[in-house]
């Protein structure tokens, strides 16, 4: 079992620069994933993740540990995403080819060609629907649905009350559902339980 984030941060602050390498190895994938899903571009995900770690490297000595290292790192990455969005005036780039090609990488049983096509199409539509969300809802959806953060963690890193996070999540989900249903992707329940 490796050292915890807190231990690595302390080691770095005590002068062990290589501790940062462990931290970046540990979190690079997650941060790239979050940026990719917010901005929709692989290249930007790599670039901004690199920028985020560079910023973190420069300011980690003054990190007081008031929140978890990962929350702090996500905060840096989100700010970079927001800057990038402002620069391109809210335009989201969704690499549809990627979304389609990566939709279903693994299946427990051999999927038929038709199943693969359907799965890719579904992934592409989901990516487009997420990209169409307002920025604040997209951030919460990505952090909750794809990064698996708790509501409390999201609330801390976005500096919002937990109730606001849940409201944004709920609205985002409702909007996604509407978008996907309009797009012909079934997301409505097939069976509704009738009152007893």
């Amino acid at each position, binding site marked *: 079992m490796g050292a915890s984030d807190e231990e690595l941060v302390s080691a770095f602050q005590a002068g062990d620069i290589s501790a940062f390498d462990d931290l970046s190895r540990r979190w690079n994938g997650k941060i790239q994933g979050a940026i990719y899903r917010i901005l929709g571009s692989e290249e930007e995900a790599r670039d901004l993740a*690199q920028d985020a770690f560079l910023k973190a490297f420069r300011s980690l000595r003054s990190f007081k540990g008031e929140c978890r290292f990962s929350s702090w790192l996500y905060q840096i990455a989100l700010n970079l995403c927001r800057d990038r969005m402002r620069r391109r005036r809210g335009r989201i780039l969704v690499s549809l080819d990627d979304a389609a090609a990566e939709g279903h990488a693994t299946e427990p049983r051999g999927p038929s060609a038709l199943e693969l096509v359907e799965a890719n199409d579904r992934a592409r539509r989901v990516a487009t629907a997420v990209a169409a969300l307002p920025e604040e809802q997209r951030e919460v959806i990505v952090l909750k649905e794809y990064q698996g953060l708790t509501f409390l963690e999201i609330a801390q890193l976005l500096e919002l009350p937990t109730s606001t996070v849940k409201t944004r999540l709920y609205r985002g989900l409702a909007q996604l559902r509407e978008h*996907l249903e309009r797009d012909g992707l079934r997301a409505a329940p097939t069976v509704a339980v009738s009152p007893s």
Partner: protein
Amino acid sequence: MVCTNFRDDMIDVLYGEAGTEAARRLEQHVSTCADCSAERAALKALRADLKTWTLPASLRRTSETHRGRTLAAAAALVLLLLGAALGRGLTSPGASLEARFRAEEARRQAEIDSLRNAVAAASQRDDASLLAHVDERIRASEARQALLLAASLSDLSAHSEAQRRYDLARVSAGLSYLDGRAGQQAARTTELMGYLLQASQDK
């Protein structure tokens, strides 16, 4: 539409963050509310749809490489421990206990020394490579900023040129219009002079 009072419970249950009381409360409500029951099913289906959007292979590879490195390090540690255990098992049964302890002690000391040297060397190398890596990142970032600046300047220059051409075209059009107006005025004056001349001659 979900009943407002149960919305937070629904979200908590959906993401596995609800306490037992909230889960029970929602379950009880859903059993009597068709709308909320349908809403819950729809949200579950939606979450399943969202899961189909996975990361591109290149980004997945990044994290798998890191996981691979961690697994390799763990495997190396296991092999090291196995090797140490086997080494102890193969010690000659005829040797005295004290001699075995001494040999073991000397071997461990040698291992510790060599590990210490290796760690010191690796640490220096890691520091140097990390700094080189950071330098490289800074350079890449600066190059990117320079490109963005160049692109912005190029945009600005193109915009200024377009604006200049537009202004020139407007000035030119204005002058043509004034020319036209002056020409009309002169023609009208000439015409009036002609009438006056003719009238004076008629008299």
